[in-house]
């Protein structure tokens, strides 16, 4: 009795993970937009605002973060499901 029971729970859990992965996949661009909107809050005068290199590092850092997150999601996400 316990065998199939466990199986069912396992499958359920896997499906649940897939759903959340899809959610994550959907949320990622929104996270990207938010993170890339933050520069609009930067002070523009050189004296108090972030330095040039830190601006560059921030923009590209967010970029790398998104790529890594997207890689991880794509690694586990099954895209062959017909419905979303």
């Amino acid at each position, binding site marked *: 009795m316990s065998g199939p029971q466990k199986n069912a729970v396992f499958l359920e859990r896997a499906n649940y993970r897939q759903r959340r992965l*899809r959610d994550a*996949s*959907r949320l*990622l*661009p*929104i996270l*990207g*937009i938010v993170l*890339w*909107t933050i*520069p*609009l809050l*930067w002070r*523009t005068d050189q004296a108090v*605002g972030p*330095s*040039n*290199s830190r*601006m*560059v*590092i921030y*923009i*590209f850092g967010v*970029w*790398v973060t*998104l*790529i890594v*997150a*997207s*890689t991880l*999601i*794509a690694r586990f*996400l099954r*895209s*062959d499901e*017909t*419905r*979303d």
Partner: protein
Amino acid sequence: MVSFNSLIAVALTYVAMLFLVAFWAERSAAAGRARWLQSPLIYTLSLSIYCTAWTFYGAVGYATRSGLEFATIYLGPTLVMIGWWWLLRRLVRIGRTQRITSIADLISSRFGKSAQLGVIVTVIAVIATTPYIALQLQSVTLSVSVFARAGGEQWGNDELNATALWVAIGLAIFTVLFGTRKLDANERHSGIVMAIAVEAIVKLCALLAVGVFVVWGLGGGAADTLARIDASDMPMWTPDNGRWLALIFLSAGAFLCLPRMFQVLVVENADERHLNMASWAFPLYLFLISLFVIPIAVVGLDMMPEGSNPDLFVLTLPLSQRHDTLAMFSFLGGFSSATSMVIVSTIALATMVSNHIVVPLWLRLQAGEGAMISGDVRDVIILARRLSIAAILALGYVYFRLSGGGTALAAIGLVSFVGAIQILPAMIGGIFWRGATRVGAALGLIMGFSVWIWSLFLPSFGAGAVISEAVMQHGPFGLSLLRPQALFGIEGLDPIVHAVLWSMLLNMGAFLAGSLVSFPNPLERLQGAQFVNVFDHSTGSGAWTTATAGAEDLLIMSQRIIGATEAQAIFQREAARQGKVGYLPDVTPGFINSLQRDLTGSVGAATAHAMIGQLVGGSGVSVEDLMAVADEAAQILEYSNKLEAKSAEQERTAKALRDANEKLTALSIQKDAFLSQISHELRTPMTSIRSFSEILRDGDMPPADQARYAGIIHDEAIRLTRLLDDLLDLSVLENGQVILHEQTGSLTGLLDRAVRAAGVTDSRLEILRNQESERFDLTTDLDRLAQVFINLIANALKYCDAEHPRLRISVRQSDEGCYVDFIDNGAGIDAENQQLIFEKFSRVGDQSKAGGAGLGLAICLEVMRRLGGDVRYLAEHVGTGFRVTLPPEAVAETALAEL
């Protein structure tokens, strides 16, 4: 120093290599050995045509002018790619199920395979892309001129123009060779995709090589370069009134809507799962392409002499340091960027122009003969494509010449983007909103396109070039609300932001309003449902009725479009599937649909639809088809229809059941009433029998009483017996089990017997008879008839309440038989009871007087019916009267016998 000639040699070698790669890829694909050609990696690399020469050279120039803003062009596509689950997956699935051949085809297909929308989108795409192609020609010529200058030659306009012309011709040849070799059902070009993938690697490596050289060769390492960036006066961050977000949106939209991007993203996509890898690999590609842009810009500004063109730093920095090989590599990178963009753009546009403009026009010119014209349509389509390719490149070249190859071209990338995203609302609306209609899409497209032309495209030629200075300042005809760069009086916006804002707002407004107020035709609604619910049912498209298309006609037409072998294969396969021998299958709606999809790949949805439409006749979509194939609404409708049918059936059953139940209930009530009557009737005599027998048992009484009580018991027992006899009699009569014994005898004798049996002789009842009229014989069951007569006489005896009771028995003969009336001088029976007296156990009036159980008249009626006659109450007489009717046979036979 690299010589100009060696540069040309390298470039030509490179081009030859691309030809070989493309040729080899086509050969492998044709041989079916090219599984890896359709790998996600190749798909990702083919997306890199987003990075054109504008990226390769222009990004650095852009960065020197606006700092980090250059990155917006790559952030938008990054967001679209990592958010592929929202949009791209849907687009790709739609593209595959509907065999979409271009973005114009997508819009046309979505909105009921509308030919007009196809034309509108094609026109927008051509106008928006031509300057972009010119920009590529310019960048190639500029880069060549850099080498020429370095080689000591001073180039004038003539040499530049000649270079541009040769590049354009070379690209046209390459594109015609590999882009229109065949009309593929899937519109995929393995050769070109392979060549583009190679070019993608070349341009990425070239840019990375220059970047590495700049950072570690010139800048002194990563840390030093960062310090240089900090120290640079380059404006790194210019949060200029919304440009940052507007440009991210713009690039994201353009990434989807540019014809060449749609071509590689959707049309050339061989497998939906490739998106999974591309979702991170392409952002990575963009990231790597952008990575060294800022360092190259900063170092270039530091090291290059004042006044040198920052757009060419990628080339001039290595050259100035005498790194000829690197410079050459860099040149190839730029060359790759430009050529791959031009090739794919041209193919995409040529497909659109030929499918949506040339072929429909040609078909219309041939309208007399319809799709039955002789000759091979394939030749026409391929020729149309080749001419379109040449025309588009010629257009690009003309634009390049007209704009003078000046700096005006630098801004054209963004201008082109704004033009392309005018398709975005119709596209997004079309695939997510079923309410989007053709009218709305057309209005939105035209509105957005007009705003773009007026507020951005025409002004981009420079002040006074197309739109005069006065109009720019004061608006057309002095209408200041329509000033191109300050629409509706809103001034001070950046021109790009201004154009994006107004074109998108008005475009979307017109699209939404138009969709809300118009009504889609059936095909539109069907396509809308299929696009929006593409994941629910990834099969089927508009269904054709099989009206008039003969399999042979269809085969002839298909052969002309997709070639004899393939068409015959398709038909043979279908015939085999239907279990038939030979080439000609039955023309089912399903077959027509799949055939149409195959043709769509070659000539586009609208044209394929029109061509099949000419054969099949009519628009082809019937209400039934709509319901059968279409959307979930139809499915629900179908389901509910079924339910309705079922429930109607159930209702009928329920009604039958109700009727049966009512009958049963009535029967049961009758049975209950009958039983209670029976028990009541049995009880009364039983009660007296029991009580008198108890008294007798107790004994001790005078013999006279004893005899009286015994007499009562005896009477009651007789009554019980009679009742049971009656019941048995009735039951036998009702069940039709009675056996009649026919006898012949005179009516007089019968009546005498009845009067005697009824016990009249001892009573006060006076019987009045006319003996004369009774003198004839009857042939029937005389015993049963006597039973009826006895009953009627006994009733008169029992119930007649007159002071001197009299019963008149009169007999009359007629054609319909013989009537015997029994009429007394009593009070008669009330009208309401006249119907009841023939019912079982019915007794009218005083119950105590009744000796019987109320079965008498019921038995009489049954008997008379058995005998073929009747007994009924005579309401029209004074007193109680019954008429017994005997059938003519009972009398007539006797009459004959008498003769």
